[in-house]
């Protein structure tokens, strides 16, 4: 479980995160949702320490991350996997070497054992026959999948995904959502996903934090969303008339 309390972050005069508190649960897909620019990426980066929050505390399974020394943070980070918004693959390395890199760095396994593990995770993300390609030679969706493979190759306890399905077609998006969901359940990871994709919200929203202008606006799960009275949330999730209709239908079914 990752808890955070009263996180505040400014860039110059701009208040990007305003007193945000929430708990991300173990074995669940925890979603941070909100429009572009609402502070999702900054919040995620604060949680892993890529940004230092100006105020607030972050607690990983009972241990304060905020008070950790650099060395302790380094050790904790070996249990963190992260998928970046732009995938952040190492462009001097092939797909295979990208995924193998954490293994090379942190394990003493034999080359064949490492390759076996690499192929295992690449298969898991449905990416075969691209091992020897460079990141510049594959599509955006494939990059995301390599990014996920690299993030999960060491079986992390905490998995962070920044918009795993932005820029992908709906079908591939669903595949990736399902994949992250399955991994979370199988390995009991604490998974945190930034998204503004309403399909993801309704499919895998175990625990949802809705952000608006850097503030916590609403929390709940995918069922709560249907019955939520929060106007901002409704306008955000059920943006089109078609979706408004779908919501009404669901509400009638539910009641």
């Amino acid at each position, binding site marked *: 479980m990752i808890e955070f309390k009263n996180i505040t972050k400014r860039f110059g005069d701009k208040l990007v995160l305003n007193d945000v508190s929430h708990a991300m649960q173990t074995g669940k897909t925890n979603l941070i949702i909100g429009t572009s620019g609402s502070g999702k990426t900054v919040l995620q980066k604060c949680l892993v320490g*890529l940004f230092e929050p100006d105020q607030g505390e972050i607690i990983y399974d009972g241990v304060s991350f905020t008070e950790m020394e650099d060395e302790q943070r380094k050790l904790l*980070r*070996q249990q*963190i996997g992260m998928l970046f918004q*732009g995938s*952040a693959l190492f*462009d001097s390395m092939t797909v295979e070497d990208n995924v193998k890199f954490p293994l*090379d760095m*942190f394990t003493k396994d034999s080359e064949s054992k490492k390759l076996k593990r690499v192929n295992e995770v690449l298969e898991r993300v449905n990416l075969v026959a691209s091992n020897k390609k460079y990141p510049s030679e594959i599509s955006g969706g494939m990059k995301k999948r390599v990014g996920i493979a690299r993030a999960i190759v060491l079986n992390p306890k905490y998995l962070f995904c920044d918009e795993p399905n932005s820029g992908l077609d709906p079908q591939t998006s669903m595949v990736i959502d399902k994949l992250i969901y399955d991994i979370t359940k199988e390995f009991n990871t604490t998974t945190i996903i930034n998204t503004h994709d309403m399909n993801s919200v309704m499919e895998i929203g175990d625990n949802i934090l809705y952000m608006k202008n850097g503030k916590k606006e609403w929390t709940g799960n995918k069922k709560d969303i249907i019955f939520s009275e929060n106007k901002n949330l409704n306008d955000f999730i059920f943006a089109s008339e078609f979706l408004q209709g779908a919501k009404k239908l669901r509400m009638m079914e539910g009641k």
Partner: protein
Amino acid sequence: MTFFTHFGRYILMLKWMFSKPENPKLYWKEFMHQCSEIGIGSIGIVSIISVFMGAVSAVQTAYQIVNPLVSKLIIAQIIRDTVILEFAPTLICIVLAGVVGSKIASELGNMRVSEQIDALEIMGINTRTYLILPKICAAIATIPMLVILSMVLGILGGRITVGLSGIISTETYDMGLRELFVPYNVFFAMMKAYTFAFIISSIPAYFGYHLKGGSLEIGRSSTRSVVVSCIVILIADYVLAALLL
């Protein structure tokens, strides 16, 4: 930002660069890779410049020494000393500041912009140790060798030129080379080479690693790093000459 903020952050970068490698084997591999990028990758340009540098100084020295009373041997000595003292270490390092420095700055800048540095950091890797230290070590290991190569080729270039253009015979040239040779000059040149190697690698690494903004900044910061490196090389050149000569 003021000069002092930059300088402070530069010193901190160097300080934090020293930490225990998570996996020494991978760091060694990276070091070797950088040696080949920085060292072997620059042999071509260094060779071409050195030979022409020697050739030009031969022609120009001969042009200036027309007095028949001055021994012809002195032409060889002048070429030898200018090549060893100034041309090979300083000129070559200024060229390398462009070649190697811009490569280091843009490589790190690109990794910063595309969040590859963040990705490494999140894995629990000290990115300063993994990305910057091998580059600086590789520069310090290979650039002095390039300077020695440049000395040899420069003097050789002069020899070929005097021979071909008939300024003096190559035998006279060889004799001149051996006369009044001061080994300390080579030591001095090597001190310069080590200092410049450090400058050429650490300053661009600073600019690349601390890059802020988008991909447009990559080109800008690599230009800036080359300019700053060149200026610092010239200042260091003066300071070393004042201290050691």
